[in-house]
């Protein structure tokens, strides 16, 4: 019986060869694109580190800016200021964000929940300068700048991040757990507090950490609310404080090249902080996932 030699051939024909080539080409392009993203990040980090390295010193972290005409000095006030701003903003945004998430996922009807999610997403998409102006008009006009007003603006930015992240992990909590608790004669609220929230703690923490990373780098909301500060370290949230992003801006504008190096160094500090915190969040999330799936 004559067998068609090409029919069962396992080698490539011209057509399949072309297909394979296109396939290869696309794969290479996609890989290059992915590598490019990594490269951009690497270039940013390395160049920021290189330019800032000369400014990194003990004084950099412990002193405030030197008075005009003198050399030396540091950014301690900006570091402390950012710490105060972000800590206070976290303290405002996290409890409210969790409560919103609980309302959306545990108590609201599906339609209201959808609407609330949409509102949160829109809030998340609001340009931060708008939030800055809003808080300026609401709190600053007439009474002046203060750290807590900046924190309030940052909290508005953090709120949808925390609420959405929390709401998403709450949705992951199996409804059988809620039923198990309710079947024991626990009220809805006790069920949420005793079973649902502890189960979602890992995810809530992740959302919080990501929101902190975002808030630490925000500049626009602080411009109007806490940017003109005394050249001194202060922990008092009623005073205006300097912050890392605002200080980077100010140092970069300075005529002194040493200040430019400080701006880079401060940028490096900020990037490192955000990187460390994002990695921590990822780790937490991975651990939390594996715990839920176990």
């Amino acid at each position: 019986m004559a067998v068609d030699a090409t029919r069962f051939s396992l080698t490539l024909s011209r057509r399949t060869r072309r297909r394979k080539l296109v396939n290869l080409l696309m794969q290479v392009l996609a890989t290059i694109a992915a590598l490019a993203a990594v490269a951009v990040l690497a270039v940013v980090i390395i160049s920021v580190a290189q330019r800032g390295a000369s400014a990194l010193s003990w004084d950099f972290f412990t002193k405030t800016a030197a008075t005009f005409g003198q050399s030396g000095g540091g950014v301690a006030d900006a570091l402390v200021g950012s710490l105060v701003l972000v800590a206070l903003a976290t303290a405002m945004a996290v409890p409210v964000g969790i409560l919103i998430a609980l309302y959306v996922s545990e108590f609201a009807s599906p339609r209201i929940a959808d609407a609330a999610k949409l509102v949160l997403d829109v809030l998340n998409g609001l340009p931060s300068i708008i939030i800055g102006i809003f808080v300026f008009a609401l709190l600053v006009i007439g009474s002046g700048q203060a750290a807590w007003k900046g924190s309030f603006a940052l909290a508005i930015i953090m709120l949808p991040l925390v609420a959405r992240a929390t709401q998403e992990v709450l949705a992951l909590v199996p409804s059988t757990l809620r039923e198990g608790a309710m079947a024991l004669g626990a009220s809805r609220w006790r069920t949420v507090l005793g079973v649902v929230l502890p189960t979602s703690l890992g995810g809530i923490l992740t959302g919080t950490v990501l929101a902190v990373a975002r808030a630490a780098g925000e500049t626009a909301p602080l411009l109007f609310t806490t940017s003109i500060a005394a050249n001194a370290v202060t922990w008092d949230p009623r005073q205006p404080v300097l912050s890392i992003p605002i200080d980077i801006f100010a140092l970069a504008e300075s005529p002194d090249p040493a200040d430019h190096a400080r701006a880079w160094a401060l940028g490096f500090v900020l990037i490192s902080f955000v990187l460390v915190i994002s990695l921590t969040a990822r780790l937490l999330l991975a651990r939390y996932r594996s715990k839920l799936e176990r």
Partner: protein
Amino acid sequence: MDADTMQTVAPIEIAQPREAPLSASGREAVFVTRGLTVSYGKAPAVSNVDLSIYRNLVTAIIGPSGCGKSTFLRSLNRMNDLIPAAKVEGEVHYHGQNIYGDGVDPVEVRRRIGMVFQKPNPFPKSIYDNVAWGLRVLGMKDDLDSRIERALTQAALWDEVKDRLKKGAFGLSGGQQQRLCIARAIAVEPDVVLLDEPASALDPIATSKIEDLMHELKNEYTLVIVTHNMQQAARVADMTAFFTLERTESGGHGVLVEYDETPKIFTQPSDKRTEGYVTGRFG
């Protein structure tokens, strides 16, 4: 199917009950349902059920998938309240009070009428805390340790876990987890325990442990069990209710076909549909 074919079918082998089933006569009714209809949205899932459940008996609910067994069971402790679309009509009297009546607190209902689910659902807490949680919530904090020991012993789990009480409940096997859920349910001293296919996810050995347990527990509690396993119903239940799906133009809904003492349901059912089901020929 006509009566002739039915007689040619060999009588099914009935699993022997572990002890003589108890009779309902003269017993106090814990639940009396009247015209109970539960709907999801507009479509009724189970319709017009009149059924009495007696104290210190095991009552089994059997029937084909989708006939509303779980729906019926969940309406006995207002678990359906958690499903927004679910609507209950008719009455469920619990010791004479309509649990859907005015002024009845669903949380209080569930506190007296506990539930064990198809899939073990321990809390992501330690074994100890799984049992302790309900006790703490309900303020039964005196003698916590001994209450926990008693519940775990009753659930035939104590010996297996007494050395690892502080370990996570997820480390237990499926059968152990289910017994932990039973311990959790009985620790708060309910009056009734509802079990929705409690052994369907378990192997035969774990299943048999749960069945033994039910014989123990009915001295203290009233048990209602949904099961797909007819041998299991025959082994553990004193009374058996058979539900089936009644087809209508607009789909179908579950109805109660027959309710009687278990041996009667399995050997001399009075309805053809029951006979078809228990002999393995779906009606």
